[in-house]
């Protein structure tokens, strides 16, 4: 039996505002529990919300980036349910009139094919607080839940896709694209481990060719691409096994544990769909004018897709390299600064996607914390281009710069890494190598062309050894060819 997977996503994106959506509390991550919870966040009687302009602006920017209709009038509603991380007894959100209407995001799969994922809508809402279930007990030893309301009221947009993805890989490609988009336009810091982007995946399976959708389950709160992919694959497998064994998929919310790679049913939600939404009487409709929208459109930076196309066009990069570089705004900015400093786009791209990326990855830091500045990397590439150092020595220079030994020129000077370009000096060394290895030289001269090719490397190696790698490889080749005739 051949099965088809159908995936839709709901993504919570924390907007990178200084203050909360309805109060003047800070949204900074990592503060002492409840030190950023004001009377409004605590739902003290008599307090009233006042909406944060910046949250509205950031939501509109997202809508513009995905070519969506922006609602000129949007309405906040109350979604009523009781949970201790939500002291008001309702979440302020949007339902009937969300701020961002239908749009689309184009994704590129590993094999290069492109696909459009439709966005159903995106709405503004407040985040809830955090519940800590492990550490607390009452005097009788009964487990207690600790509540930290610092996160309560952090502005979110919830982005809802159509069920357009057909595999875990497509879902992850979409998630990465969305991450790239929201960080590029500066509405979210993108720190997944801090919960700045959280994914709920709706998964169902159906027989290939079926028109109707199967029963779906929702796996909530995945905060890494890796877990998302694993959780989807696990759930698809579970549903297919269940159906093939004669069972039925039950609509439910599931929780995935990345450490154990297992998932379990979280709660049966018989009451869950009865949130009794109604327009929030404490908040007035948000009105956005055409002028507001055009002003925000003008603020949008170049979007990742457009930048990728420009990198291919302007710098002659491959689709793949351009995609990697343009996908992250900070990386793209760094790359362009390196190009400006070095004057060579291809070498710059190789270094940024190669050694720089590998070192950042190993150190687990972002490019904004890269110890080698774009200007220094550009200077180093210039030294490769003008023959001061070879590509091989450049790696040494890069490491030294990374470790804080100064600019490339300082490192080259201090460590004496300048390539030998004085052909007279090089000739002396080559003569010495041939003199020290008379037998090999004789054997070389006697050998046929095919064998010579293999033996040639030995002499190059000896020269490099004596010069500590500082000889210009092209020069060494040419001189050796001449001397070994």
């Amino acid at each position, binding site marked *: 039996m051949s099965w088809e997977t159908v995936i839709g996503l709901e993504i919570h994106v924390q907007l990178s505002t200084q203050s909360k959506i309805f109060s003047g509390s800070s949204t900074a991550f990592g503060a002492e529990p409840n030190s950023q919870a004001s009377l409004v966040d605590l739902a003290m009687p008599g307090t009233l919300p006042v909406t944060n*302009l*910046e949250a509205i602006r950031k939501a509109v920017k997202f809508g513009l980036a995905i070519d969506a209709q922006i609602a000129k009038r949007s*309405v906040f509603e109350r979604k*009523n349910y009781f949970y*201790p991380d939500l002291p008001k007894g309702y979440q302020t959100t949007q339902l009937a009139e969300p701020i961002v209407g239908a749009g689309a995001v184009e994704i590129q799969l590993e094999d290069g094919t492109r696909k459009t994922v439709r966005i159903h809508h995106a709405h503004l809402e407040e985040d809830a607080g955090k519940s800590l279930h492990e550490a607390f007990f009452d005097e009788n030893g009964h487990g207690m839940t600790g509540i930290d309301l610092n996160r309560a009221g952090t502005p979110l947009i919830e982005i809802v896709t159509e069920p357009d993805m057909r595999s875990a890989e497509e879902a992850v490609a979409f998630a990465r694209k969305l991450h790239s988009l929201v960080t590029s336009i500066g509405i979210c810091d993108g720190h997944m481990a801090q919960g700045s982007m959280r994914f709920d995946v709706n998964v169902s399976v159906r027989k290939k060719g079926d028109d109707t959708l199967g029963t779906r389950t929702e796996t909530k709160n995945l905060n890494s691409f890796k877990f998302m992919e694993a959780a989807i694959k696990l759930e698809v497998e579970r549903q297919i096994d269940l159906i093939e064994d004669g069972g039925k998929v039950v609509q439910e919310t599931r929780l995935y544990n990345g450490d154990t790679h297992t998932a379990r049913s979280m709660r049966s939600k018989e009451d869950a769909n009865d949130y009794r939404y109604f327009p929030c009487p404490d908040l007035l409709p*948000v009105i956005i004018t055409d002028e507001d929208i055009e002003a925000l459109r003008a603020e949008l930076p170049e979007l990742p897709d457009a930048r990728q196309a420009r990198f291919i066009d302007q710098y002659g990069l491959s689709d793949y390299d351009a995609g990697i570089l343009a996908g992250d705004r900070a990386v793209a900015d760094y790359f362009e600064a390196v190009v400006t400093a070095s004057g060579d786009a291809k070498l710059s791209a190789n270094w940024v996607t190669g050694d720089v990326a590998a070192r950042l990855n190993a150190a687990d830091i972002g490019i904004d914390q890269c110890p080698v500045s774009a200007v220094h990397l550009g200077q180093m590439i210039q030294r490769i281009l003008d023959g001061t150092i070879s590509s091989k020595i450049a790696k040494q220079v890069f490491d030294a710069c990374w470790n804080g030994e100064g600019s490339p020129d300082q490192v080259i000077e201090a460590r004496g890494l300048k390539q030998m370009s004085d052909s007279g000096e090089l000739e002396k060394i080559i003569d010495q190598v041939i003199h020290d290895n008379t037998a090999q030289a004789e054997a070389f001269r006697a050998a046929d062309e095919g064998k010579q090719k293999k033996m040639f490397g030995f002499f190059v190696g000896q020269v490099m050894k004596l010069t500590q790698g500082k000889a210009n490889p092209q020069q060494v080749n040419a001189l050796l060819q001449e001397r070994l005739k």
Partner: protein
Amino acid sequence: MALDPQALARVAHLARLHLDPTDSAALTDRLNSILDMVNQLQDANVGDVAPMAHPMDVAQTLRADVVTEGDIRAIVQPLAPATEDGCYLVPRVIE
């Protein structure tokens, strides 16, 4: 729209209200008479009236994105029945 005792029990549960079952029949009747009154609205012709989000015909005033609130934990936390390590404690909410 009319409420039956099951629907009443469900709404009460969602609102976390404890109802005495002996009051159920009387409460259902009283709530239904309120619903009947509200139901008269159905007779109004609202075909070309836009849904109202707020009785005042004005738009939301927005505030600048500035942190204006400080840490008031030491003042408000004594009001809570139980706290520890800066957290409010509630009976454990997951199994």
